[in-house]
């Protein structure tokens, strides 16, 4: 996975949903990408730690659907701003790569 995109995916996942714990986040990312993006679940936790350290997400301990203690994460205001910024840049990047891969006219070659 591209460097830094995991952070963005986590933020995006948390943006749409109620607070979620690490396990949910990992599975949501996998499911949404139709299993294309195989998140190594272990690598999620350092990323969560990093994001929380930056103040983009906040966490609290809660109880899961099947009565397990779990640490829940939610997006903060700065996190939301960051997400907008990052997804904007992502769009630009995708379009740019798209233009390179599929030029409007072959003459440009």
């Amino acid at each position, binding site marked *: 996975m591209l460097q830094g995109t995991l952070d963005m995916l986590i933020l995006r996942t948390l943006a749409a949903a109620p607070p979620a714990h*690490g396990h949910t986040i990992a599975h949501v990312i996998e499911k949404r990408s139709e299993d294309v993006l195989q998140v190594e679940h272990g690598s999620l936790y350092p990323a969560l*730690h990093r994001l929380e350290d930056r103040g983009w997400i906040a966490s609290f301990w809660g109880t899961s659907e099947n009565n*397990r203690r779990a640490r829940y994460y939610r997006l903060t205001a700065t996190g939301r701003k960051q997400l907008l910024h990052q997804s904007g840049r992502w769009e630009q990047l995708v379009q740019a790569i798209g233009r390179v891969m599929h030029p409007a006219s072959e003459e440009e070659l």
Partner: protein
Amino acid sequence: MSLKRYFWRKRWAEERARELESYLELETDGNIETGMSPADARAAAIRKLGNPALIKETIYEMNTISFLDSLWRDFRLSLRNLRRNPSFTLIVVVTLGLGIGANTAIFSVVDGAMFRPLPVPDARHLLAFDTAASRETQFGNSSFLDWQDIRGRAKSFQDLTIFNHVSASLNPAGAVPGVSAHYARGLMVSDNFFTLLGVQPAIGRGFLPEEGKVPGRDAVVVLGYSFWKNELGGDPAIVGRQVRLNGHSFTVVGVTAESFTGVELFLRPDFYVPVMMTSVLSSDGNGLLVNRTWRAFEMDGRLRPGVTLQQAQAELTVLMRDLERQHPDTNKDCVGIVRYEIERRTQGDGSLPPKILLVLVVLVLLIASANVASLMMARASARLRETSTQLAMGASRFRLVRQFVTESVILAALGLSLGLALAAICIRGFVALLPPDGSPLLQIDGRVLAWASCAALVTILFGVAPALLSIRDAWAAVATTRTAVSGHRAVRGITRRVLIGGQVALSVVLLIAAGLFSRAFVRAEGLDLGFRPDHMLLVEVDPSLQGLTPDQSALFHRQLLDRVSAISGVRSASLAAWVPFVSGDSWDLSIDGYTTPSGDKWVDTINNRVAPGYFATMHIPLLSGREFAWQDRKKAPLVAIVNETFARKYLIGQGSVDKALGHIVRLREGDPIQVVGVVADSSVGSIGQPVPPALCFPASQMGGPRMTLQVRTAGDPAALASIVRGQIAALNPEVVPISVDTFEHVVVSRGLILTRLLAVMTSGFGILGLALAVVGLYGVVSFMVSRRTQEIGVRMALGAGRASILRMIVGSGLALVSIGLITGLALSMAVTRLMTSLLFGISPWDIGTFASIAALLVLASVAASAIPASRAMRVDPMTALRYE
């Protein structure tokens, strides 16, 4: 990374561990739902997550300031290592402490006495002038008139100032009630003195240009800060009040800044007065201001911006030649030299002892460093197995180096602390040794600390080098799994040998210097001074400081002499204008029937003014003629007594000294003075030097108000001091002696102090150096024995006797030493030549000293190798062979 996270990282680690556990539970639950067995479900969950330990570590490291953290870890590990080897740590720290301490103490003395810049702004560019230098000497003070002329004409300088030492009785009664009169030392200065130096007063002002114009008009005084603070109570309201100097009223106009301690390192003036007030402060009236030959002033100055020292020197040379043309009588052959003040100060003869001390103490440091280096090396090789294990376990080489460096830094820091503590004690000792007035300011300040830190740095460098070497060994050891690796052992063997050889060589230099200085001290002490300083009390008195006229002063002295002679326990007493080793005086003389080889009319000759009974009291034999008598009054014919060297050099050559009687000498071209006596030569203030021609005049004809009473006693002279003081007070309660001391103490403290100091200090260094070298040698030989245990076992198994083993080990110890010894002896021959002038005639290549030091060293090294050798002797062949 936030520091908060760093300090909370333990809690965070637990937090994340719980979170990972929670993930595993959730995932396991999910897996069970899909039909896995609980065990499989858990295993699958762990697979999905990845290595939890690794994740935790990643998170932990995110919370870590890794540099700080590993530094702290290194520090703690080093402390643990050092504590595990207390004897090693102690030896290294003590070695470093002694080396650094000796260096710091000596540097503080040498710096305080010689190299410290003056406490004025831009001291490095302050110039010092000599305007009466000659071909023989690079030094010669300036006269007031020469200063005026040079200052008026020279274009190269911003300004020039002059100053001259004066002493006076300072009575502050009018300004500070209840404080009695002090005998104070001050400076007579030109009006631009403070301005040129660039120092601001703490209170009030310095001198105004008008105060340098009219002789005797402006009675103003600036007080020295410490005198004002310590003696006068430090009241700022003193400015504007009156104090009395030699009975004359002076207005206090200012107090110098605390940081300004004068223009010499050795003297902190109590007061400053304008040079125009000389008539009040000296008995010579305005003589200083009108005589071109009265060269009493030191001259300092500053360059005009853009002018080089060479240009300034060129101009000065031209100006001095002009002055010589205009005043051939007074300025013949007077050469002008301009130098930076700090250079002038460090060029004279007096700078030799401090420089020698500094060199010797650096040798001590080198020995200490070499010792530390070999200790570190021995330890590094003892730790080879540990180091190679660390390497094999994947420790980076950088980490290991850093570990060694950290240890060295800790050792050096401990050594530095110990050294500074030792230095502080030494400095307190020096201060107690030195005379209270006129000694340099000794303290541990920034400059001294910088020197100490440099010394510590040197030892660190020495300590790290072997450690680096040992890491290389450890790499090789990883490959071979052996603790001893032959390839680098050869290299280290050589390094060791060089270190030990160097230590021995340097100790030899120190010991030989110590031996020579000690012999010189013993010789100097035993040298015949030509007079007997034992059982003598010296009391310096100047009644004119209390306003007595010259005639009154002369009467005072005569009465005092009578009273003192009558004290029981006094054998005899006399008076002299000055006392050998304390001061001296010389006047221009012409001698009828004699001209100098260079055709000069006058010879500058040492002379003294003494009362009747002087030579008998001093135990200077009268060879011919008579002593002075009270009949030699002002109106009577002028008379003189010459010493034998004077008689032979100027009057009679060979033959009986009786022929010298009746010869005529004159002060310049004054009235004839008849020689009435010849006395044996006696020292005029140096030990072991040839006595120069000298003569004496009767105090009753040419004496001044300031005289030293000389009292020869039957018993302890110090015991009579208070009685003599009482007699002075009985004569005139206002008169206070300037100084009271025993002659023996004067001779030791002024004439022998330097030799004694050098002897004591170099002996200390020498013993220190020897001890360090012996310890080093012991270490190396022990190490050698432990390395050769097997070999020794084999030898013994093959029938070698114990004696031959002993010989072998001691022999190899001596072999180590001999190279160092020979180098040291050769090095000493080069070094001691520089000390010749301080040795009182002892040859710098004194065979006895060299031989005994060599013998001492051989003995010491036999002793140092005998202990490990005896251990080798007791080696059990079987154990040794099984050792591997």
